[in-house]
């Protein structure tokens, strides 16, 4: 992933148009821009480089097979791929068959993620916010998002009431949102 490449909505639209036309080099460009996002998320969830590579392959191949799944008018590529990478990784972690259809809801964060520098700034900021959260809030959120546990499973593991787990997860997400408001 080159640190100088910028992905504006217009550039993303052009890239997707090239992929739709069957231009294999466009997939190379897409990979160079976003493989770090996909791989990082997969590695965080799976903790295993081989499995994380498999997720990278799967996500990009699905996009090659079905480029219409990404709607350039309704969201940005980087957060969309990050969420897909997380969901596919959780599927693998929980030994569920991976979704064959890449179609996911659009993600519009309103946060500048246009180039690698902006993405790094955002990632550092999220990590800082997470570091400032009460430990039990951070733990509950990470168990749900990066370990793919349900709130019942989290309550079972932590010994906390279900309602407490739910409230902690939402409070943590709200703190994250507030930091980027």
């Amino acid at each position, binding site marked *: 992933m080159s640190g100088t490449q910028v992905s504006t909505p217009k550039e993303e639209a052009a890239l997707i148009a090239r992929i739709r036309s069957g231009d294999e080099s466009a997939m190379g460009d897409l990979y160079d821009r976003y493989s770090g996002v996909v791989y990082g998320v997969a590695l965080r969830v799976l903790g295993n480089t081989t499995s994380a590579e498999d997720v990278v392959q799967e996500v990009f191949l699905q996009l090659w097979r079905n480029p219409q799944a990404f709607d350039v008018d309704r969201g940005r590529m980087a957060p969309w791929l990050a969420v897909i990478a997380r969901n596919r990784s959780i599927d693998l972690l929980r030994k569920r068959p991976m979704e064959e259809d890449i179609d996911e809801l659009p993600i519009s964060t309103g946060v500048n993620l246009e180039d690698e520098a902006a993405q790094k700034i955002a990632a550092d900021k999220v990590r800082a916010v997470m570091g400032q959260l009460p430990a039990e809030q951070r733990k509950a959120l990470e168990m749900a998002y990066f370990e793919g546990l*349900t709130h019942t499973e989290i309550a079972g593991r932590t010994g906390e009431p279900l309602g407490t787990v739910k409230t902690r997860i939402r409070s943590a997400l709200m703190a994250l949102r507030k930091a980027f408001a």
Partner: protein
Amino acid sequence: MNQHTQYADALALYAMDALDDPRELRELQEHLGTCGECRRELESLRADTALLAFSATGPKPPQRSRQRLMEAIAAEPRHVVKPKSRFVLGRLQSRWLALAPIAVSVILAIISIGLMQESLRLRNKNEKLTAELVDMRSKSQLAREVMDMINDPSLPRMTLVGVKTPPQPQVRTIYKPEKGHVLLLANNLAQLPDDKVYELWLIPQQGAPMPAGTFTPDSKGGTMMMHAMETEGIQAKAFAVTVEPRGGSREPTSEIMMEPAS
């Protein structure tokens, strides 16, 4: 989200697929089918979780990963040209039989694309139908409540008649105190100016009349109204009707024009 706070925590879990209580899941999905505000909040929550995913970015995949992907892409079939749909009767020549596996692959690819598009279409349709189903359930519930109240002989009924001259306007009320529901059925009502409405009042055992809904008659002077009182369990001594400014009043501002028949 102010009026939907009961769903706030569940929505956050739903955004990351961590809500596993079937009842809560069903209720939330039904609510999402009708509530645009909560659907927008769900999108915002998904964006919040996308930021969370970003906290994991940093490590780069090994170089072989790119090579592996490009090789896999090169091996993938692309750009399927849909042939004209035509059935051919007769025996296949042997040279055409050799192409049969390719033809089958092409047909399967076309079917797959068709099914994918159909899946997307059905998903959109499903969301629309869910919203319609919830709306129908809501209307059905109201209809059931109306029928229950009409058929329940134990509920207090009053017939209000015009105080003055015929043709007598008539208003019937059926009141369910434990739920605070008032059903009103009226006919022969006189038409009102555009800036006026009829207002029903619940006269409690003690205290001032309480507003129990406004209504206007149709062109034949009839109407039906179902009103939920702000408080449940109020014991009604009587009901009365006044004419009020459009929008209704918190207390009667005109003389009672209809009251319980003696």
